[in-house]
């Protein structure tokens, strides 16, 4: 019984982490119509940066949360550079843009290997959240519950951004109909930079938040990327609710699949994505068909 409960909590935690990763991917895909193949790399980069700040850099030791924020901002800026100077060279060519994101992923992977080496880096759980909470016979790690709370908070924040702010309205317009949005006077290319940057920052934030659980190691990028892809396809492109629900579903499938059907776990993970692409390509809550 305890096993199943723990598995469930871990699934929801992982789902929360996936949401932080996938939300950015979904926004980028929704607005720019490209699957950002650099997304996993940005996740990993954020994790490495965050780990470095937490672990001490130049004698300075940063608080975990401060480190997470700094890492997120750094990667967000990097994302803006990528969009502004590389992707914008290929307007209206989604295929070429996807290829560029693939090339950049390779470069980031090697950069990380160069700077941080091949050994996994463990990041300590932030102080104050170490330890467990007891509910009868059950024991839940604080940090895992904290991750869930953070994911919910970010979800709410994003929802407020999209639903209540002018920027959010422009983003939603761009997702629904980019041509029309241009006609109405929305500076869509500027929006692209903002959204790509925001997505990158979210991915990086997810990376460092996940680091105490997953650690940071080479290969993390291409492990997380397909998961973001599956979540967004399942949940639906450009839909925040879709990303949220999709993350939960995939989190559950991933963890339960590993536990129950280890030999077929990858198959089980991608099966919903395949089924969706074949039978309902816009996903559960999607705004358009990829």
């Amino acid at each position, binding site marked *: 019984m305890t096993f199943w409960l723990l598995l469930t909590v871990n699934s929801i935690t992982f789902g929360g982490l996936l949401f932080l990763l996938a939300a950015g991917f979904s926004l980028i895909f929704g607005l720019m119509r490209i699957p950002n193949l650099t997304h996993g790399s940005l996740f990993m980069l954020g994790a490495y940066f965050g780990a470095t700040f937490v672990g001490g850099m130049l004698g300075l030791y940063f608080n975990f949360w401060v480190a997470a924020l700094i890492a997120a901002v750094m990667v967000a800026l990097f994302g803006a550079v990528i969009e502004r100077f590389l992707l914008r*060279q290929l307007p209206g060519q989604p295929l070429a843009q996807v290829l560029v994101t693939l090339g950049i992923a390779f470069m980031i992977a090697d950069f990380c290997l160069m700077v941080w080496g091949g050994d996994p880096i463990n990041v300590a759980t932030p102080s104050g959240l170490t330890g467990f909470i007891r509910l009868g016979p059950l024991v839940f790690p604080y940090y895992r519950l904290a991750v869930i709370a953070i994911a919910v908070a970010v979800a709410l924040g994003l929802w407020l951004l999209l639903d209540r702010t002018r920027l959010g309205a422009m983003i939603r317009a761009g997702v629904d109909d980019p041509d029309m949005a241009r006609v109405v006077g929305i500076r869509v290319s500027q929006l692209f930079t903002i959204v790509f940057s925001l997505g990158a920052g979210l991915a990086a934030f997810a990376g460092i938040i996940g680091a105490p659980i997953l650690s940071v190691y080479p290969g993390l990028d291409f492990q997380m990327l397909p998961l973001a892809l599956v979540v967004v396809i399942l949940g639906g492109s450009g839909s925040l609710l879709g990303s949220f629900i999709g993350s939960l579903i995939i989190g559950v499938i991933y963890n339960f699949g590993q536990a129950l059907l280890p030999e077929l776990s990858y198959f089980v993970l991608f099966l919903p994505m395949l089924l969706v692409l074949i039978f309902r390509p816009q996903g559960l809550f999607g705004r358009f068909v990829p």
Partner: protein
Amino acid sequence: MSAARKRPAGLSGRAVAYAIALAALATVPYWMPGEYYINVSSQILFYAVFALGLNVLVGYAGLVSLGHAGLLGIAAYATGYMLESGYGHPLAIVAALVIGVASMALYAVLSLRATGIGFIMITLALGEIIWGLCYRWISITNGDNGINLHGRPHPFGFAINTATSFYYTTLVVFLLAMAAVTVFVRSPLGAALMGTRDQPRRMNALGYHVWAIRFWACMFSGLLTAVSGVMFVYYTQFISPQAVDLTASAEVLLMVISGGAGTLLGPVVGAALVVVVKSVVSGFIERWNMLLGAIFVAIVILMPEGLVPGTVRLWRLAWRRLNAQRGAKAEAKP
């Protein structure tokens, strides 16, 4: 006044270039500085077959597959598994090709539900599923430990265990593959395939069965990929999930795109580029992966048609400029 140049009857510049290239390829073991480089040449050739296979889809069908390493892996694993189970080389090879092509049929049926970005995403997922099966289905694939091969086949009774003998085997396979692709590209089916790449809606309105044309292109691609998979596993004598992951699929795509998708020589040049950077340049530059990524990004942005067409274009431009200058100089002479 420039004198008209007389060309030797019957010999075009292109034919001469091909003859020289063929002669060079046929004599590689004699002028390559050592066994290591002969092996690199073998690698270039079977990766070229792999790239030619992917190019049938990327270049001629307009369908970018990000899971092709999975298909290579299936043929490679099938060979290894058959050999391990005690079957002889001929049966193992035949089984690998059959299973490889059959897998491609399934791969095609699933991924041809979409085109464009949708196709990329489905094939990425399929490649990941194949990788996951290779990694986890330990009873068949031995998981992360991979399968070891012991020895190579004896085509027509010849042993091909040395670098030179294996190189010549690979060369023969490569030339056959080049011939097959050349014939295909010039055929009505090849023209129809390129038509579906450029104007699928129009092709449908002209009476073509667009899905079926793409499916058969996939099968041809699958055959070439399976062949390269067999060559790969016999070369390395080993297959593990690492050869099947997303990075491997991205690398072969890089070969096609950098060389020039939709051309005959592009995939070959691309294969040479990637293999040389991985095998040779990596000895001098530690960050060759970053170099590969940078080259890829540069080509996609600056020379999107690829190295082969791009170089030809620049060459022609330079030639024209040179002739114009010469012409101007000649006119300027009193």
